Structures are given as C-alpha cells and as structure tokens.
C-alpha cells in the first residue's frame, strides 16, 4: 500500500480517472465504443487519436528536460515537416503510391533531423542557454514553413498518407499505436540500458558528468535530434489527420502542451530526473480535459483557464517552499486543527514522500556523476 501511495504516478493517474469519471457522469455515452466496419469509434478512441502528437512530442521533451534543457521549437519543427511532406505529395502525380508517401515522410523527418542538429549545435557547441537557442528556431522555423508552402495552406489527398494521423490499423487509430510503440521503445532504451541514468547525470551536472567520463555533449546533442524527429513525426500526424498543412497553424501551442504534459507527469524542469510514464499520463490528461470541455458544451477556448490552474497547482506541489508553507500550516497548530479533513493530511503525506524521493535521487545522481 505504501509503495502505491509513494508512487509518483499516483496523483496524475487519479486526476486522469477523475476527469474521465466526471465527464462520464455528465455525458452518459462517453465510455461508449462502437465498431464500424471493423474499426473502433467513440469518445475514448478520439481522445487516444488526438493524444498521439502531444504524447510523441512530450516524450522527446521529457528527454530534453531530463538534461536540464528545453525545446521551444517543436511546434515550428512540426510545421516544417508537415509542410515539406505535403508539398512533396502535392507535387507528385501519384500521391497514392506508397513509394511517394515514404519519400514524403523521409523528407519531413530528414528536415526534422536537421532542425534538431541545429538546436543541439547551438546548445552544446556554441553554449547558448537551451531556452534561448531553441527560441531562434521557434521564430525562424515558422518563417521557413511559410517559405516551403509559399504562404499557402496546402491540402493533401493521399490514402497512405492519411493512415499516419487519421487512419486505422488493427481496429485502432494508427497514430496512437505508433506513438505507444515509440513510447515503449524509448522506455526500454532509457530504462533497460544505462542511457536513462546518463541523461539524468547530464541534467544534474553536465560538467561533473563529463569529468566522470559521460559524453555529455554527444548525449545532449542526440537528445535534441530525437526531440525534433518526434516533433516532425507529430507534424506529419497532424497534417495527415487534417489533410492539410498550415504553416502558421500546424503544431501551434504544441510546445506548450508538450511541456505541460511533462510537468503534469512529475518531471522536474530543473532536470536530473524524468518519468516517461508520467508524460504518457500527462498527455492523456491534457487531451481528456480538452475533450471533456467539448463534451460538456463549454466554450473550448476556456480550456486555457483550466490549464493555467493545473500548471499552477502542479508547480506549487513541486515547489519546496510551497510544501514547507503547507507543512507549517498543518503541523504548527495541531491542537486547533484536530478537525482537519483527512484528505489534507494525506496530501501532505504524499508531498513529504516526494521530497524524500527527490533528495534521494539527487544523492544517487551525484554518486553517478562522481561528485565527491
């Protein structure tokens, strides 16, 4: 029981379940899943499909944030990849040929690799702060996407291309299968090999990691490339699902949703530890929230207010100062507060557990980096 309570994923999962149940109470057919021509349809399936791009970008972002970086350019990279792929398909005579679609995907992802290499170059070789270095591509990248499409919104009609973001495979949306496969692969690579620990050690102290023999520069560089490739793939999914590429609209606020998913999932922006599972849950929470608001008939734009509240609460839970404040409020006046609801005590128990957890992790990571 204690292991369950101490699990960092507990609260995000509870929030996700609460959101799902709350929506179910308001909209009785929310959990309904129909089978039409062998494919599954329903609100939950839609949530899964629309989560795929955020999840992918969130995964890349998690790795970048683990190294104490951040990548603001993912939305722009998604726009570039989507624009290039659809432009290529529009230019060919046979957009339905598999070879052409593969070429388009290759072009899109190739450009993403270049974008990631550029970000990595600025961060590792030139030594610019990540937030500023990726800001350059965030601004210029949209301009590049505009150049690619000549400021037009490009529509694309290609059956195989449609599969990436809007199609079905084995009865499920292809995009979520792809995203989950990549999730599993990333999780295996980082948690079953030493890569994850190396990433975290770079995040705790890049210089100490380098002295300890970790190749922090190439690791950081690789992570930015991976993040950009995931962003490019997300761009392909978005343009494929919408059958159009809009240089200004594709992937707008994608960086923010991705960072939000990472933060909700419990990965600290200070770097040094990360939770891929948390990002998975975080991405689903964001999409469920959006769908919930649509289902409940509230103006969808108001989602932003809820997102603000969630960011604020999650950050306050992560903030030691806020935890200390809550601790003082609850523990300094025990006589008067005997009627304190048990929920608050529970919450504090969980919060203390996180603090212990974080200290341990720093200690472990410091050992790894060879800090005396």
């Amino acid at each position, binding site marked *: 029981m204690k292991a369950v309570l101490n699990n960092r994923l507990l609260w995000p999962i509870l929030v996700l379940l609460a959101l799902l149940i709350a929506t179910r109470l308001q909209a009785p057919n929310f959990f309904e899943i129909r089978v039409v021509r062998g494919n599954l349809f329903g609100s939950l399936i839609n949530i899964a499909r629309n989560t795929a791009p955020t999840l992918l970008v969130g995964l890349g972002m998690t790795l970048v944030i683990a190294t104490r970086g951040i990548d603001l350019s993912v939305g722009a990279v998604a726009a570039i990849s989507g624009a290039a792929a659809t432009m290529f398909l529009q230019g060919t005579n046979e957009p339905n040929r598999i070879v052409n679609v593969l070429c388009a995907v290759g072009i899109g992802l190739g450009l993403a690799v270049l974008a990631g290499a550029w970000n990595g170059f600025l961060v590792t070789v030139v030594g610019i702060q990540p937030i*500023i270095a990726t800001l350059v591509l965030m601004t210029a990248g949209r301009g*590049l996407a505009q150049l690619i499409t000549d400021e037009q919104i490009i529509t694309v009609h290609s059956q195989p291309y449609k599969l990436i973001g809007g199609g079905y495979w084995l009865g499920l949306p292809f995009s979520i299968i792809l995203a989950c496969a990549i999730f599993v692969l990333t999780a295996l690579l980082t948690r079953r090999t030493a890569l994850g620990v190396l990433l975290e050690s770079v995040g705790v102290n890049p210089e100490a990691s380098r002295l300890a023999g970790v190749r922090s520069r190439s690791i950081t560089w690789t992570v930015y490339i991976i993040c950009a490739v995931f962003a490019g793939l997300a761009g392909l999914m978005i343009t494929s699902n919408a059958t159009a590429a809009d240089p200004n609209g594709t992937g707008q606020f994608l960086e923010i949703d991705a960072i939000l998913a990472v933060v909700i999932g419990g990965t600290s922006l200070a770097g040094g530890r990360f939770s891929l599972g948390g990002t998975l849950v975080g991405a689903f929470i964001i999409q469920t929230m959006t769908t919930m608001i649509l289902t409940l008939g509230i103006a969808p734009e108001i989602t932003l207010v809820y997102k*603000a509240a969630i960011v604020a609460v999650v950050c306050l839970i992560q903030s030691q100062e806020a935890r200390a404040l809550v601790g003082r409020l609850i523990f300094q006046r025990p006589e008067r507060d005997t009627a304190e609801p048990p929920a608050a005590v529970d919450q504090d128990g969980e919060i203390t557990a996180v603090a212990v957890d974080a200290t341990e992790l720093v200690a472990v990571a410091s050992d790894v980096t060879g800090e005396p």
Partner: protein
Amino acid sequence: MSAPAAAVEARSSQLTAIREPRYWARYLPVTATGVLLLVAIAIGAGLYDRFLTGQVLANVLITNSHLIVLAVGMTFVILTGGIDLSVGAVVALSAMIASKLLSSGWTAPAAIPVVLVTGSLLGLLVGLMIHYFKIQPFIATLAAMFLARGLCYVISIESIPIRDPFYVTMSRYRIKIFPDTTVTPAVFIALAVVAIGFFVLHKTRFGRTVYAIGGGESSASLMGLPVPRAKIGVYVVSGFCASLASLLYTFNAVQSGNPLHAIGMELDAIAAVAIGGTLLSGGYGFVIGSLLGVLVLGTISSLVKFNGTLNSGWTRITTGLLVLVFIVMQRLLTLGRRREG
C-alpha cells in the same frame, strides 16, 4: 545542491570577476544595434526611392509603438535573468477588458485605469509565485499566459469593437513633427516610457537592484539590496507595460478587443530585447537597445512590405537570425563569464 557544488559555484564566480568584459564592451552590442538600424535604413533607401522619407520612418515608429512599450517592460524582466511569456496574452486580455467596459457604457477615463491595474496585478501575482515559491519564470509566466488568454474567452469569444470617442481621437489625431511628417500621440507615449525606463534603471535604487539581481542574485542579497521587492517589481512593471501597450495597440491598429489579438507578440518583444543587445541571462543591457531593437525589426518588416512580392516568412527568418547573431556576439564578448544555466 550539495556543498561541493556550492564550492564549484563560488570558484566560477571568482573566474567571473577576472573575465569581466572590458568597459567599452558594455556598449558594443547597443552600438551594433544602432549600426544595424542605419544599415537597414540605408538598404531601404538604396532599393526604393521613396523609402527614405520622414513619413515612412515615422510609420515604423507608429506601427511599433506598442512593441516599444512591451520591450521596455521585457527588458526589466530579462535584466534580472527572468523571462515573461505572458505579455502577448496580457495585451489581448487588457484590450478585451477595455472593449467590454467601454461597450457597457464606461467612459475611457474610467476604463483605462482599470485596465492598467489589472495588468499590474497579474504581474504582481506572477512575481510572487516566482519569488516566494521559486517557480521558474518560464513556467509561472506560461501559467499567466494561459490564464490571461483563457480569461479573454471568458469575457467574449467574439471580437468587440471599440467606438469610444477618446480612442477614435487617439487613433486619428496627428502631431506634426516635421513639415511633411506626422506621428500619433502613441509614439510620444512610447518614447516617454523608454525615457522613464531609462531613468528608473539608471538613477534609482530599484534600477540598480535590477542589474544586481541579473549579475548574481545571492550576491545582491548579501549586499543587502532589496531583492524580493525588485524581483517581484520587474514583473509588475512588465504587466503594467503590457496593459499600456494594449492601449497603444488598440489606439493604433485594431480598434477592438479580440481574444486572438497579439498571439506570439511576446516573441517579438523578446527578440527585440535580444537584438537590442541585452544579455538574455541578465545583468547587462539598456532600454535604449530595446528601442533600437524594435526599430530594426520594424524597418525589416517594412522593407519586406515595400518589396511586395517577398514571402512574409522572410521577416521571421531574419528576426530569428538576428537574435542568433546577437546572442553569439554576447557569448563571445562574455566568453566564460558564466556557464549556461
């Protein structure tokens, strides 16, 4: 952070003292921005006969007056080593509040103070979160951005036109500065904000504390400077500037409140500050540089407009590249001054 890490920090700050840029180097980025502006204008004059007229240059000031005010507020924040992503959304929210109040019968002299106070309060909230709960400026202002943008939609999902006589006067009124060159009152407001910003940063305790925080927050605290007040203060300044910028924005360009206004404007402001030669990790920079930065961006976008056939993507690409050039230049000037953090 463990004790050895603190020792490393201390050692690197000793190195800082040795590698402090030479005196003239402080003014090099701003000078470079000034030269860049002249070059941009010269290119325009070389390419187009009618570019080098007073009115074209005055129009750069007129259409960017709101951005100048935003950039001044952003300079304060960036000088402390922070960042404010919420300014674009605060511009939109302020315009929404103003248009809603005006359309429900308020007069302009009553509505404008409300708008300015709202922006400042939002900034205060962000500043408190950043200082007392140690939340990173990036995240705290991101939350504020969501909140402000979301509140816009709570007020109205559709655009609300502004037909208040004061606003109409402010947008139509022209002040003659040269025989054939006129500007709007907004330009004077913007330039006054730059002047006040300059005065506050260089002649007041608050301003000196702002620079000191950017140079090193713990040293500023140890020196007994009022760090909390200044650190929260810069976000209040930024919030106030954002709502003032929204007034100029509604005067000049749009005459309405719309939740979709000013999306991405925070990026323009940050870019202008960076191009203006302010070190994005804090401690070095001038509001004059930010003014020049805005003018450089404005001149480039009017060059693109003069051409007519050029893809507007080029404006963004040039902006990104200029930001890069200035960051790399700063990096070279202050090489080794501080490791990326």
